């Protein structure tokens, strides 16, 4: 009991609202790399276990100077971009059909549910037989890997559209195609774009896996070679390139969200 008058009411609200503090992420990065460099220089981190960041950077510069960076990077980017854009666009089309048509839903959805959880890497040998050891099998792995998550993102986005908006469109006599173009697709767009975020990172994972089989050029091939020669500095450089690639994709999708979802 409070018997003293004027006792202030204790504050118990607030919290549970994490905010972004500028530059904190950058500082964490810098501190971590500085600590790592320091550890390597003092021998606290053995060069056998982990090369110093400066060595990895030197390996990267060497790669760039020799002109191999462009070769590896362009081979990888080409595979990822072709595989991902085919997988994502076919996935959006299939997802829209599942979202709109009973026949597609009944026919395709069980298939999608059955194939989605299969790691596409397991199918890689099969893709090699079907599409050849060259570009075909690599693109196909990425295509299949991004196809299914995009389908699921798209049709569940459509399923979650406010039905009253569709009813509104019908009540104004809008044509079927107008309802799809102007209500259903924009309504599913947030879900489709967040599906793209997921499928872009899946694409990078599958890229590396696919490039580890019979690829002359590609970041994955470079990492595999570095690993088998115990060139850990090159390996770290390759991993950093992949990480930058992922960040670049995320940035592009973020831009697309800013533009396409300006209404939010």
């Amino acid at each position, binding site marked *: 009991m409070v018997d003293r008058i004027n006792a202030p009411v204790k504050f118990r609200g607030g919290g549970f609202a994490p905010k972004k503090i500028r530059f904190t992420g950058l500082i964490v990065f810098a501190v971590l790399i500085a600590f790592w460099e320091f550890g390597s220089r003092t021998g606290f981190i053995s060069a056998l276990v982990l090369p110093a960041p400066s060595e990895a950077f030197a390996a990267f510069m060497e790669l760039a100077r020799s002109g191999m960076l462009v070769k590896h990077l362009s081979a990888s980017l080409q595979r990822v971009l072709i595989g991902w854009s085919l997988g994502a666009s076919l996935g959006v089309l299939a997802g829209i059909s599942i979202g709109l048509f009973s026949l597609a839903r009944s026919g395709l959805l069980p298939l999608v549910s059955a194939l989605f959880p299969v790691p596409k890497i397991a199918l890689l040998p099969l893709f090699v037989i079907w599409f050849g050891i060259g570009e075909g099998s690599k693109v196909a792995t990425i295509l299949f890997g991004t196809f299914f998550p995009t389908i699921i993102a798209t049709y569940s986005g459509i399923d979650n559209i406010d039905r009253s908006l569709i*009813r509104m469109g019908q009540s104004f006599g809008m044509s079927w195609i107008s309802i799809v173009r102007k209500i259903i697709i924009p309504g599913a767009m947030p879900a489709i774009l967040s599906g793209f975020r997921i499928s872009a990172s899946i694409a990078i994972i599958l890229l590396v896996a696919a490039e580890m089989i019979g690829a002359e050029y590609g970041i994955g091939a470079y990492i595999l070679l570095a690993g088998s020669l115990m060139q850990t500095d090159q390996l770290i450089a390759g991993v950093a390139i992949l990480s930058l690639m992922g960040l670049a994709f995320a940035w592009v999708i973020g831009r697309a969200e800013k533009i396409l979802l300006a*209404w*939010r």
Partner: protein
Amino acid sequence: MRLHFEKISHQYDDVEVLSDISFATSEGEIITIIGPSGCGKSTLLRLAGGLEIARSGKVLQSGKLPQGSLNPLTYIFQDFALLPWRTVRGNISLVLEDHRLSKTQRDEIIDDVLSRTSLGEFANAWPRQLSGGMKQRVAIARALSVTPAVMLMDEPLSALDAQTRAILMDDLVSLWTREKFSALYVTHNLDEAVRLGHRIVVLSRRPGRIREIVSIDISIDERDNYPLEMTQYRNQLWELMRDEALAADRELVHG
């Protein structure tokens, strides 16, 4: 144009929702439909505009359409149903784009309805920037843009707070005074029904039947001048509704 309801009955699965509804609208008349929640008011409105088909009975149209009517039976929904990814202008444009209109004609219509609903300065706002009352004004502007013959309004003010509701009711009264639109106006709010209805159709609890149709002979724009009479109408309707509302309230929810 008039809408005739002829012996409308409707079921969902084995739940009877509406039973033997017959009445007709007249031109320039607002009919308010009032009844306890779940009595089938929204269903009746969906049947009226062709969004659903009655199990038995018919909804018929007669008479001439207003000139340039693009969508004779036009809804105004309780939840506004504005596309969040289109501006105020874009939301109105949406319902015109499927019609054979040039861009100029479309812009003229949009500007016209925006000024009739005093929304001009909000033309480029996003729905998320608007208050509930403003959103419903946009929905009204959108409905006016297709020159409806009968407006089908399903609890258009129910999502709004009491003050906003009073303001929008005034807006509707002045809109009717200027334009003499015809409407079926569903509500569960007695004040709205009495304020806006030329005739008030009182439905029973589910299955909704017509208990009574009450005509109010005082012109809509003059009702403020007859507080005594309006109170009498209100009390008469409340007498009709009270038992139904009580009984409906004590019913178990189906399903």
